[in-house]
C-alpha cells in the first residue's frame, strides 16, 4: 500500500532556525550520521579472510583492473553506523503504526527464529529433492492452511509479493480465456477506489482497464457495474473489504454478474485480515485472490519487503497455475518444475526457484501459533479496534461514510474545513505526538483521506492514548493553530523534506563530485 502524492503539497515551507542548536549536530540520543562513502575507505574492511591459494587464473583476461570505490568499515564502526541510522526510523515495536491497508501488526519473534533454523534458512533451492523433504512438506502444509482458510481448492505459492500475486491471478485468467478461445475478452473492470497495483497489473497482462465509479456509501456502484458488462469483459478486480474499509455487501451478486458474461472475479486479498476465520472468500464466488503474507500473516515489512503473495485459484483456473508446484505422492513430496507433463497447462514460471520460503516459515509459524480460534479472535479484535477508533473520534473528526467499518476507519478532511490545516499537516503533527501517520490521500475517492488501521495488536490502553492525541490535534486544528501544524514535525529526526526538489533534480547516488559541491 502506498501514499499518494496527488492532492497534497510536496515541498515544505522553510523553517525558522532559531531553535537550540548543538555544536556537533547531534541531539542527545539522536546522532548525526554521514554516509558510508564519507566515513569508510576502500582499503578498510570488517571481514578477515585467509589468504587465497596461488592458482593460474581462469578469468580469461576479464580481470577487473579499475577501482570499484566501495568503502569499508570495521565491525564496531559498522555497528555504530547502522544502529545510529536505525534510531531515525519509526517501527511497530516503538508505537502505533496505523497505516491503513498496510496492516502493521506485531511480528512475533518465534517466526524469526524458525526462519533461521538451518533446515529452512540454509538449504539450497536446487539440492536433490530427497534432501529437502521437510521444506516441501512445509510448503504443502502452508498451502493446506491457506486453502482451508480461504475455502479455495488450490493455491499458487511462488508469487513474491502482493502485486506479483495479482499478476499471477490475472495471468491465470488470461491463460484460461486464451485456452478457451475467448480472445475477445480483454476488458477488466476496476473500481476507482482500487489500489494502483490493480490497474497496473491488469495492463501488464494485456488487458484494458475500465473504471467503475463508487456509490455514495463507498462501495461499488452496482448500477454502473451492470452498464459496463458486456461480452468483452474478462473480469473484475475488486478489493474486499475495499480500500474504504467497508465490506462490499453486493459481492455475491457482483460475482454472479461477472460470471454471467463469462468473466472471472479477481479479489484483491490485501484486506483478508478482516475476514480470516469469519468469512471464506471461496463462499463469495471469487476465482482468484492473492494473500499478503506480510500483512495478514505477519511476516515483517522490513522497511519495504520482502513480502510473499500466494494466490488462491478456483477450479476453473487452477490448471493454469505457475511453475513450480509441490505434489504429494504417498509420503513423498516432489516439485513439478517443467512445462511439460503435469505442468503443461501452466501459464509459465514467475521467478527463479520456488517462492519466498523465508516468508512461508514465518507465516505458518504465525498460523499455527494462533490456530483457528486465535486467527478468528485476531480478526474480531482488528475489526473491534478500528470501530472503537471510529466511534471515539466521530464527534471531532469526520468519518467518510456512516455505519460500522471493518478493520480500518476512513476519515475525510471535512473537519479541517476553514482551519487552514490540511490532511498532510495533520499527519505531520501526529509525528510530533509520537505516532506514525495513517495512510493519507488514499483512497482517491475521498477528499483528503485518512485511513486508520490499528490492527489487533494494540491494547485498549494504547488505543486510548492514541485517541486522546488525535482528539487533542483535532481541537487544535479547530482552534486554527495553523502554525503548529504547518511547521510539524519539529521533534522528528528531520523537518519536512522537499520531495519536489528530489524529483526535479534527481540525486540517486553518492558521487565525489556531488559531495565536493556541497
Amino acid at each position, binding site marked *: 500500500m502506498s501514499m499518494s502524492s496527488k492532492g497534497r503539497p510536496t515541498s*515544505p515551507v522553510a*523553517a525558522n*532556525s532559531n531553535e537550540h542548536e548543538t555544536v556537533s549536530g547531534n541531539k542527545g540520543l539522536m546522532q548525526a550520521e554521514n554516509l558510508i*562513502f564519507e566515513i569508510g575507505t576502500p582499503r*578498510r574492511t570488517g*571481514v578477515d579472510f585467509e589468504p587465497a591459494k596461488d*592458482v593460474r587464473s*581462469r*578469468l580469461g583476461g576479464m*580481470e*577487473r583492473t579499475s577501482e*570499484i570505490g*566501495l*568503502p569499508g568499515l570495521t*565491525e564496531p564502526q559498522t555497528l555504530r553506523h547502522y*544502529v545510529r541510522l*536505525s534510531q531515525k526510523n519509526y*517501527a511497530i*515495536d516503538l508505537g502505533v503504526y496505523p*497505516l491503513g491497508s498496510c496492516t502493521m501488526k*506485531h511480528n512475533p519473534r518465534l517466526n524469526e527464529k524458525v526462519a533461521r533454523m*538451518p*533446515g529452512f534458512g*540454509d*538449504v539450497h533451492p536446487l539440492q536433490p529433492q530427497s534432501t529437502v523433504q521437510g521444506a516441501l512438506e512445509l510448503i504443502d502444509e502452508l498451502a493446506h492452511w491457506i486453502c482451508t482458510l480461504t475455502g479455495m481448492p488450490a493455491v499458487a505459492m511462488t508469487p513474491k509479493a502482493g*502485486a506479483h500475486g495479482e499478476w499471477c491471478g490475472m495471468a491465470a485468467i488470461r491463460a484460461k480465456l486464451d485456452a478457451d478461445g475467448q480472445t475477445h475478452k480483454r476488458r477488466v473492470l476496476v473500481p476507482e477506489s482500487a489500489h494502483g497495483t490493480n490497474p497496473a497489473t491488469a495492463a*501488464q497482462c494485456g488487458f484494458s482497464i475500465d473504471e467503475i465509479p463508487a456509490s455514495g456509501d463507498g462501495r461499488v456502484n452496482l448500477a454502473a457495474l451492470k452498464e459496463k458488462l458486456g461480452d468483452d469483459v474478462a473480469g473484475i478486480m475488486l478489493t474486499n473489504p475495499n480500500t474504504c474499509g467497508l465490506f462490499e455487501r453486493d459481492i455475491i451478486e457482483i460475482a454472479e454478474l461477472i460470471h454471467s458474461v463469462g468473466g472471472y472475479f479477481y479479489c484483491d486479498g490485501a484486506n483478508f485480515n478482516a475476514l480470516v476465520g469469519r468469512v471464506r472468500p471461496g463462499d463469495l464466488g471469487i476465482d482468484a485472490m492473492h494473500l499478503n503474507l506480510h500483512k495478514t500473516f505477519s511476516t515483517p*515489512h*522490513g*522497511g*519495504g*519487503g*520482502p513480502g510473499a503473495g500466494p494466490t488462491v485459484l478456483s477450479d476453473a483456473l487452477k490448471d493454469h497455475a505457475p511453475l513450480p508446484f509441490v505434489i504429494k505422492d504417498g509420503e513423498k513430496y516432489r516439485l513439478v518444475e*517443467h512445462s*511439460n507433463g503435469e505442468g503443461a497447462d501452466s501459464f509459465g*514460471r514467475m*521467478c527463479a*526457484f520456488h517462492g*519466498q*520460503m*523465508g516468508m512461508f516459515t514465518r507465516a505458518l509459524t504465525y498460523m499455527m*501459533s*494462533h*490456530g483457528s480460534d*486465535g486467527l478468528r479472535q*485476531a480478526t*474480531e*479484535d482488528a475489526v*473491534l479496534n478500528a470501530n472503537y477508533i471510529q466511534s471515539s473520534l466521530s464527534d471531532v473528526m469526520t468519518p467518510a461514510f456512516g455505519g*460500522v467499518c471493518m478493520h480500518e476507519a476512513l476519515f475525510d478532511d471535512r473537519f479541517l474545513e476553514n482551519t487552514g490545516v490540511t490532511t498532510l499537516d495533520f499527519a505531520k503533527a501526529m509525528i510530533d505526538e509520537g505516532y506514525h501517520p495513517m495512510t493519507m490521500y488514499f483512497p482517491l475517492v475521498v477528499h483528503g483521506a485518512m485511513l486508520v488501521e490499528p490492527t*489487533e*495488536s494494540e*491494547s*485498549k490502553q494504547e488505543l486510548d492514548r492514541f485517541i486522546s492525541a488525535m482528539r487533542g490535534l483535532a481541537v487544535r486544528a479547530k482552534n486554527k493553530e495553523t502554525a503548529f501544524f504547518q511547521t510539524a514535525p519539529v521533534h*522528528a529526526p528531520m523537518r519536512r*523534506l*522537499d520531495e519536489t*526538489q528530489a524529483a526535479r533534480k*534527481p540525486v540517486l*547516488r553518492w558521487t565525489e563530485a556531488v559531495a565536493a559541491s556541497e
Partner: protein
Amino acid sequence: MRYLPLNENDRAEMLAKVGVDSIDDLFVDVPKAAVLDDLIDLPRYQSEAAVERYMNRLQAKNMSAGAAPFFCGAGAYKHHIPSSVDHLIQRSEFLTAYTPYQPEISQGTLQTLFEFQTQVAMLTGMEVANASMYDGSTACAEAVVMATRVARGKKMKAVLASGLHPHYAAATQTVAQYLGIELAHNAAVPGNDANAIDQIDEQTACIVVQSPNLFGEIVDLEPYAEAAHAAGALLIAVFNEPVAFGAIKSPGEQGADIVVGEGQGIGVGLNFGGPHVGLFACRQKLIRQMPGRICGETVDAKGERGFVLTLSTREQHIRREKATSNICTNSGLCCLAFTIHMTLLGEAGLRQMAAINHANACTLADKLSAIEGVELVNETFFNEFTLRLSKDADQVVEALAAKGILGGVPVSRLTGDQKDLLLVTATEVVTDEDIEAYVASLTDLMS
C-alpha cells in the same frame, strides 16, 4: 492468546462505546450465506514451545548446506555472512518498519537505501540503481519490458543469448507473452553465443547476455554492446553472483545499458530460493523508464540533507495502468543485509573474497577434471564451472547426497535435458577437507 492484548473486559467496554451488542454486529455487511458460525477446521492455538518443536522436527528432515561439503550454485550461492549482519537487520527499527513513506521518521531506511543504490551502481559500473526488485529473474523480465518502453513500443523483440539462466528466461517469457514482446531465445548450451548477435535486427529493443553465464563461462560483453548499439538496441547484462564483480570487469565498463541480477550472494542466505534480492541498475538517461522504488537526496525545511522516495510518477500508485511496473513491495530488508555485508567487506574485502572463491574453484576444477569420466567444459570461470560426466549427472548428485555431499546442480534440473552436465561451485566456505571428500566420493562413483 499471547499475541492479542485485548481481554474480555476491554472487548465489552469497547463494544459499548461502539454502540453494538456483540462482535457479530460489526460483520452485518457480510451476506448471511457467507458468515461462518463455527471455527474453521484447523488446529487450535499452540504454545510457543509446541510450535517450535514442530518446526524443529520439520527442518531436521532437510540436509542443510552448512552440514555438508557444499558445491551448489546455479543462481543461489552460499557465502559466509558476518554475524553482525543478521543482528543489525533484526533491530526492531529496521525489521518492523514499513516502506518509508513518511521520510521525517524513516531516514534510517532511506539513507541505507541511498547507500544500497550507490553500492549497486558502483559494483555494476552503472550510473544509477533502484531500491531493488524481488529477485534476479524478475529484474531480468522487468528490464526487457523496460527496453521496449525505451523504444517507445516501436521495437518489440528481445534476443536472449543462450547462456541466460533458464529460470530467468522463463520468467521473462511469462511476462513477455501478454505484452506482445517477441523473444528470440537460444536454448542453454555451453560456449559463447555468437549466434545471438546475428539475431539482432531493426525490430530488436534489447539483447540479454549473462556473464558469468549459466555454465560459469565469463563472457566478453563488448561485442554484444557494439552490435546492439549499432542496431539502436540496448544491451541488458545479467548476473547471478554479485561476488564475481570483485574479480571481473563490471558490465558497465563493457558497454551495458541496463544491468540486472541476483544480489543474494552478498548478505542474504540461501533460504531455499527466497527471499533473495533483485539488483537493477542503468544509465542515468534511462531512469524515467526504470521500474521500482528509487530513493533520492534532498533537503528538509532547515536545509539539512535528507532522503526521500522519488520519481514516483513512474509508479503504479500515481500512474495506475500507465505505470512502468506494478511492483510495490520489493526486497527492503534484503537490501539492508546486502548493504551491511558490503560495508563490512569494503572493496578490499570483496576483492579478497572474490580471489578466494576463484582460487577454490580453480583448485576444485583441476582435481575433479582429473577423474576418469569427468571433463571440464569451461575455458573460463569465476567460482562456478560445468563438468561433463560419463554418467547421468542427476544420479551422481543423488548418490553424492547419500554420502553426505551436496555436489552441485545437474543442468537437466533447469533445462530438462543435457543430462551429462553438472554445475559445480566453490566459494570461500569450501575447505580443503571438503574438496578432498568430494574428489574421493566422485572418484568412487565414476569408477
